[in-house]
């Protein structure tokens, strides 16, 4: 893709779409998706998310990359088709690379190229930056901002920043989305009044997580920590009432940071064990036992894990999850 002047963005898009007519693609857009990332080890991962998202929600994508050097601004446009050969749609991609003082020009570049009347969703793939002009402008523009706590170096600070953003637009987090299946599983398991009573008598929680990490995920224990904090917040566990242990285990074949298993014991000697089948990682086996009884194990199937799934889910949701807000308040207090 060759760089073009910002003033040529619209005409270049028109030219590209004229060329598309021959292959009969529909120009589709459900959302305006603004990605922000710094040019670092994560950039390729963030780029890969774009294709995953537009396959489910074709959108106009505005991808902002902050580089370190100089005060340059570069713009490029392209048309990205759906991944499947049968897909009959394609989407606009406007890429803006900026550094130094050029960053302040970005909001002015974005405004004319947002598709009117469509929701604006920003994926901020870096640490929140309160006070940063671009960050503040995007909060003002967006109906929803999606973050990734995987990049956060300071969780309480991260939580505080998100709670502030939430006053202006709805928020979401990819780590929170990544373990949604576990939340659903626990919610379904402890659904009946009897089971809920047992859950309230929890005195020990042991979470095993995959200790593998990559540049895209610096803290492997994050999902496990969030799961712990979610249970504490929603079940209102008093400090010290439940012994919590988070144990790393190396499983290179599995997604970094993923929860492997969960053991929960109660004060009346009930034991719940949720274990991921390491050969078929989207299958979870639940075992329940007491001192005198052992139930038949039950199998649950999670939808298959794939890159970008969490982001796609969060784009589809509306509003800020009240449970996620409770989690943030709890992290802020750490």
């Amino acid at each position, binding site marked *: 893709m060759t760089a073009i002047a910002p003033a040529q963005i619209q005409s270049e898009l028109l030219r590209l779409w004229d060329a598309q007519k021959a292959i009969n693609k*529909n120009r*589709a857009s*459900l959302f305006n998706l603004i990605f922000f990332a710094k040019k670092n080890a994560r950039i390729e991962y963030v780029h890969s998310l774009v294709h995953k998202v*537009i*396959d*489910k*929600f*074709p959108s106009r994508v505005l991808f902002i990359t902050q580089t370190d050097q100089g005060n340059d601004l570069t713009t490029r446009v392209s048309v990205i088709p*759906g991944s*499947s050969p049968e*897909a*009959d*749609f394609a989407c606009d991609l406007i890429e803006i690379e900026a550094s130094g003082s050029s960053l302040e020009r970005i909001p002015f570049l974005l405004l004319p190229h947002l598709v009117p009347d469509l929701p604006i969703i920003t994926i901020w793939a870096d640490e929140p930056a309160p006070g940063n002009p671009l960050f503040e402008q995007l909060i003002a523009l967006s109906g929803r901002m999606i973050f990734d706590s995987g990049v956060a170096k300071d969780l309480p600070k991260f939580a505080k920043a998100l709670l502030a953003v939430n006053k202006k637009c709805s928020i979401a987090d990819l780590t929170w989305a990544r373990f*949604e*299946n576990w*939340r*659903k599983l*626990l*919610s*379904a398991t*402890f*659904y009946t009044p009897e089971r*809920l009573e047992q859950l309230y008598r929890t005195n020990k929680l042991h979470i095993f997580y995959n200790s593998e990490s990559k540049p895209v995920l610096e803290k492997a224990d994050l999902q496990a920590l969030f799961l712990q904090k979610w*249970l504490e917040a*929603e*079940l209102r566990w008093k400090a010290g009432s439940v012994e919590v242990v988070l144990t790393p285990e190396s499983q290179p074949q599995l997604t970094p940071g993923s929860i492997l298993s969960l053991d929960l014991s109660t004060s009346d000697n009930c034991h719940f064990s949720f274990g991921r089948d390491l*050969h*078929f990682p*989207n*299958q979870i086996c*639940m075992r329940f036992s007491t001192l005198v009884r052992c*139930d*038949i194990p*039950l*199998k*649950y*199937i*999670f*939808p298959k894990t794939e890159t970008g799934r969490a982001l796609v889910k969060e784009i589809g*949701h*509306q*509003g800020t*999850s*009240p*449970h996620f807000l409770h989690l943030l308040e709890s992290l802020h207090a750490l």
Partner: protein
Amino acid sequence: MTHPLEEPGVSSRFVDPCILVIFGATGDLTARKLFPAIYNLAREGQLPSQFAVVGFARREKTHEQFRDEMKEAISKYSRSKPIEESLWNTFKEQIFYHRSEFKDEQGYNSLRDFLQELDSRLGTRGNRVFYLSTQPSYFTDICEELHRTNLLYDETKITDRWSRVIIEKPFGHDLASAHALQADLLKFLRENQIYRIDHYLGKESVQNLLVFRFANSLFESLWNNRYIDHVQITVAEEIGIGTRGAFWEEAGLVRDIIQNHMMQLLSLVAMEPPVSLNASAIRDEKVKVLSALRPLDPKEFESSATRGQYGPGYINGEAVTGYRQEKNVGPQSNVETYAAMRLFIDNWRWHGVPFYLRAGKRLPKRVTEIAICFKQPPGVLFQEEEHMHESNLLVIRIQPDEGTSLKINCKVPGALNVIQPVKMDFRYGSYFGTSPPEAYERLIIDCIIGDRTLFASDEEVFSSWALLTPLIEFWSKKVQGDFPNYQSGTWGPKAADHLLEQDGRKWRLI
């Protein structure tokens, strides 16, 4: 009180453990639709972990043989391919086969014992869904046997488990038989245990009708006789009757398509806004509008309805035979493979607006759509006396290529006021990238959850039979001398065109 772990806004329909028993498990529907649907539900994690499927049929088979056959069916007909081996190896352990005749008492006794054993082994807690994928003549016998063996529960007495029956269409073959069937079934179960399946209601595009009408304030104010000239509902199939000659000779097109699918589409298009989205509120409005349909006057049958039967012709360039040459069809058959009719709804909203319905086999293409044809604007500005511009047209495409299009008139760039209709098009497939769930997936899971919104109620069924039975009886007695009266690959008999031409209208060319 809300469960503390249940997240607001996150779909959390809790699915009870249960066993699904499919009667007629070696039939076409099971292979083409039911098992692919169940497999995809399992793949998406929507089935409860304590779940089993038992195929019930007459042929001799082992569990393994049945599993292999269903694996082949899933591989061929599932919307997701290829089959995931790891998932299949777990899933197949929940599939079983039970051989019996539909009227064999011993067969039901052993079924009961087998299901109880599965309850103990798998934890399915006695919950049952019985899917009757059989000929209608077996419905009562099966329910009677299920009742005798206590597999159908009296829900006034048993509250810790449930049992439900899914019944395929047609429900009866006329009004009297529908009532008789209902009376028979109610000896063994209650109305709220009966789930009359109409797979059109499980289609995303049909469910979208309510969202389209009631989540957009734009259209509701136009949705009445002030602005709408007429409505055309089309269900066209390019296939013939295939191997179903024996069934078709008894049924005909009105019973197979119009009485169920088209009446459902009509009721969704014409109903008043419900007070809520629960099953009974929606059902009430559908029943109201069906009850407001003007009965077809026997003196006006000839001018209000017409029928056809396909002869030889060409579909997609290939020669095809006529209906009377199909297997198990009489050479002088009087059965219709096409029908068109004009209906009126006598209420404030629709008074004077004709609803034209047409459905047929061996038509040029497969399409199901609803076309809302608006009235012409007042002829004071851009309308010339001799040349009326095209009316605005809103088309809701149910299948294929689900979506909506709106035809509006625009000025052609240039010095003169030349007006050209243009189409604004929304296509589901282009906007929502991944393929939607199949209708049966939604319907099966809804039955397990106990949500009857997408199933036809007894009142809806009786209302549509009440409307159509006199016409069916009239046609069955009247020998149609000109059958076959349309060539395969054409849009039906000339008489169907006349049905609209007499009103100064014409069918949409799709």
